[in-house]
């Protein structure tokens, strides 16, 4: 089966600019996650979707970050305006959301964002 797809793979922007990341999860996976991974740290959950509804966005800086999953499949994560501290790898993951393997998350390759 095809894995989690993300684009772009790399992005360099200046502070105060905006940027958007795209994620296509594994077909049939109900749950989609966005993580932020700062260099030297483990991934930190930003937002979790179940189908097209938000389950948890408690760690999302809502003044500048937004995410949507309109049709319960693809998702976009946006940052506007970007700050220097947003430089990180943004990971998308998906999981079936049900059954014995419902808790297993499959990760995409990530988007490495550099804010200058």
């Amino acid at each position: 089966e095809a894995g989690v797809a993300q684009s772009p793979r790399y992005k360099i922007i200046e502070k105060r600019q905006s940027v958007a990341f795209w994620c296509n999860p594994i077909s049939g996976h109900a749950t989609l996650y966005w993580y932020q991974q700062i260099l030297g740290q483990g991934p930190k959950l930003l937002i979790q979707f179940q189908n097209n509804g938000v389950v948890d966005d408690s760690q999302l800086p809502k003044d500048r970050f937004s995410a949507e999953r309109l049709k319960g499949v693809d998702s976009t994560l946006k940052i506007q305006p970007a700050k220097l501290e947003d430089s990180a790898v943004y990971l998308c993951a998906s999981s079936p959301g049900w059954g014995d393997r419902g808790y297993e998350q499959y990760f995409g390759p990530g988007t490495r964002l550099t804010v200058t």
Partner: protein
Amino acid sequence: AQSVSQHNHHVILSEAASLELGCNYSYGGTVNLFWYVQYPGQHLQLLLKYFSGDPLVKGIKGFEAEFIKSKFSFNLRKPSVQWSDTAEYFCAVSFMTTDSWGKLQFGSGTQVVVTP
């Protein structure tokens, strides 16, 4: 608040040496436990997982981990490492509270370098 800690940030060892990476969490309730690996230039992959049952779990590539509930630990082991095991290893915990279903909290990672 729940937390996940990995004791070693960097480990360097020779081929054929044994590997053990520590992972501890703070939470008295039910947990699901995972080890993920990230090989150079690749995305995060699931090594092994523990949900319930036998506390000694076996994963891919000869890795195993033991859940010791009394110590809140889930240590990863491999009896004899190979150069190809050079990677970053992340412990992740899903704290099974009413509002955290499926959500993963990651440790900060351990960079393992295996020398020929």
